[in-house]
């Protein structure tokens, strides 16, 4: 193959990937429109889009209230949480060199659950708005879990084995603490804790959207700066180091970014599993490992999966809305099995 032909082929691949990103954006926009039109009160798509265009002060007060106070925040939160989990999962798989890693591998979700349970049980006396208490506590405990893993990594090196072992210790610690609180809780409080753990986009409001958007705006440029280093890390630590990648610093930096994205996502909507595991795999299968494309695509696929699950959650039980965390888990388990079986088959062949 001549050099000119190779250059042409590479540019064609670049164009194909750009089209793929554009198609994913369009698909996400379409699913968001369907999500806006779906809910306990019937609203045809055209009517939903008209109400959206009319703004929060639109003439039809009921429609405007449903759309701007409930459905739009839910949909936007689905996009942001799905994108955060997609990117966090991708980078967790990259720095741990483990295809089965997810944003929750290092015990972050157990920590968030413990924080929320703590706030629900003991937070009433604190001078903080009720709706903010559980998210704030979940955010803080998730970052505390990341801090513990980070300290282990500082003391014992940032290799994948050390990170996973540290994460497993953190996972068991916060799971035990969470169970202790549930054991001590009254039936009413226990119900609130369990509901929080379900993971539901209905907890979204404009403030939580702004907070999560701000976290993403702060974290994504940091990750974007490292796209080539993260791509090189996929060759394995020895090769990445030999190419001049400062692997230890990169791992620690990315670990903090993943912790912030996960904390922001989990704090406001609870635990939503499998998006962070499956979205990076789907994106990788479509676009390869060049992180210039893979990272935005993992974000888009994560958002598509979560908003799609939201539509499903609303249509599975007409008149009610299932917590989306339950739907993603039910869809995700077969996907996880398929991934494991496919990998197992690949290793045998």
């Amino acid at each position, binding site marked *: *193959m001549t050099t000119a032909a190779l250059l042409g082929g590479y540019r064609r691949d670049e164009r194909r990937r750009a089209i793929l990103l554009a198609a994913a954006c369009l698909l996400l926009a379409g699913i968001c429109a369907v999500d806006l039109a779906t809910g306990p009160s019937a609203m045809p798509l055209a009517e939903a889009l008209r109400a959206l265009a009319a703004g929060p002060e639109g003439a039809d007060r009921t429609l405007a209230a449903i759309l701007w106070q409930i459905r739009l925040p839910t949909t936007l939160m689905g996009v942001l949480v799905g994108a955060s989990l997609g990117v966090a999962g991708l980078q967790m798989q990259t720095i741990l060199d483990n295809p089965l890693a997810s944003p929750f591998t290092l015990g972050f979700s157990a920590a968030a659950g413990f924080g929320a349970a703590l706030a629900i049980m003991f937070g009433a006396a604190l001078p903080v708005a009720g709706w903010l208490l559980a998210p704030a506590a979940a955010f803080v405990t998730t970052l505390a879990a990341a801090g513990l893993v980070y300290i282990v990594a500082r003391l014992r090196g940032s290799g994948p084995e050390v990170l996973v072992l540290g994460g497993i210790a953190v996972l068991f610690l916060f799971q035990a603490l969470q169970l202790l609180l549930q054991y001590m809780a009254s039936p009413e409080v226990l119900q609130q804790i369990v509901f929080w753990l379900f993971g539901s986009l209905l907890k979204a409001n404009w403030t939580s959207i702004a907070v999560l958007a701000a976290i993403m705006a702060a974290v994504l440029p940091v990750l974007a700066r490292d796209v080539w280093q993260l791509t090189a890390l996929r060759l*394995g630590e020895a090769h990445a180091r030999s190419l001049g990648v400062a692997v230890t610093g990169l791992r620690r930096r990315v670990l903090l970014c993943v912790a912030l994205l996960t904390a922001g996502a989990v704090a406001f909507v609870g635990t939503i599993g499998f998006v962070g595991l499956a979205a990076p795999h789907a994106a990788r299968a479509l676009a390869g490992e060049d992180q210039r494309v893979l990272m935005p695509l993992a974000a888009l696929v994560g958002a598509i999966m979560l908003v799609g699950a939201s539509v499903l959650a609303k249509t599975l039980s007409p008149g009610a809305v299932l917590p989306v965390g339950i739907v993603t888990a039910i869809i995700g388990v077969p996907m996880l099995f398929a991934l494991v079986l496919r990998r197992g088959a690949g290793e045998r062949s």
Partner: protein
Amino acid sequence: MSDPEHSGLVLRGVTVARGRRNVVTGMSAALVGGSITALIGPNGAGKSTLLGAVAGVLPCSGTILLDGRPSHPGEVAYMPQSTAVRASLTALEVVLLGRLDRLGWRVAAEDLSQAAGALDALGVGGLARVRIDTLSGGQQQLVLLAQRLVRRPRLLLLDEPTSALDLGRQMRVLDRLSDYARQSGAVVVMALHDLSLAARYASSLLLMKDGALVVAGSPDAVLTPAGIRRAYGVEAEILRTSHGHPVIAPLAPAS
């Protein structure tokens, strides 16, 4: 232009510890550019550890100078011993990563052209658009070698660069590396187990054992029956090909 007195790689008292054990102890040598230097020695001699330390990926004590000063990462390329690569990247994308410090959001035509040229030079241009995780061990080794060559390094450190290659490819790769060293003046250091290949392609050999330098010099000076017996515990005969290249024929384990 570099000062001829200070050109090349100088090691002074280099010691590398793994845990509490010194794997390389007090290694000193002066290596010139423009030709290949081969590190030889039995398993566990410290060859790979020394290369890792010189590359800067393993901590060490002592002094390592390239052209009279500490090297900087941009002028060094190091290929560790072959490990399977599982990434879903094409061979061309892998070679492009060799120019990591130059890559931006849009890959320049110059970088693509250099990467394609490096693959062609090692005879694997046809694999450019094939995913590396689907290639054989030998093909992966060639792609990873092309990745190092595309950096145009002043110091090229290779750990068993031909271990997964067939005889023909071993010779073509070593010919290519000799050409690179000669044309660029680069210091090329490689660990090799095949003593006949080392004797044929390297202008100087460093024979290591138990983490220390046993002897350094030309192939004729280092590869003697006595030296091979002392380092490897093997009785060997040094033959000559019709072209005059030495060939090491092992006879029996030394008693």
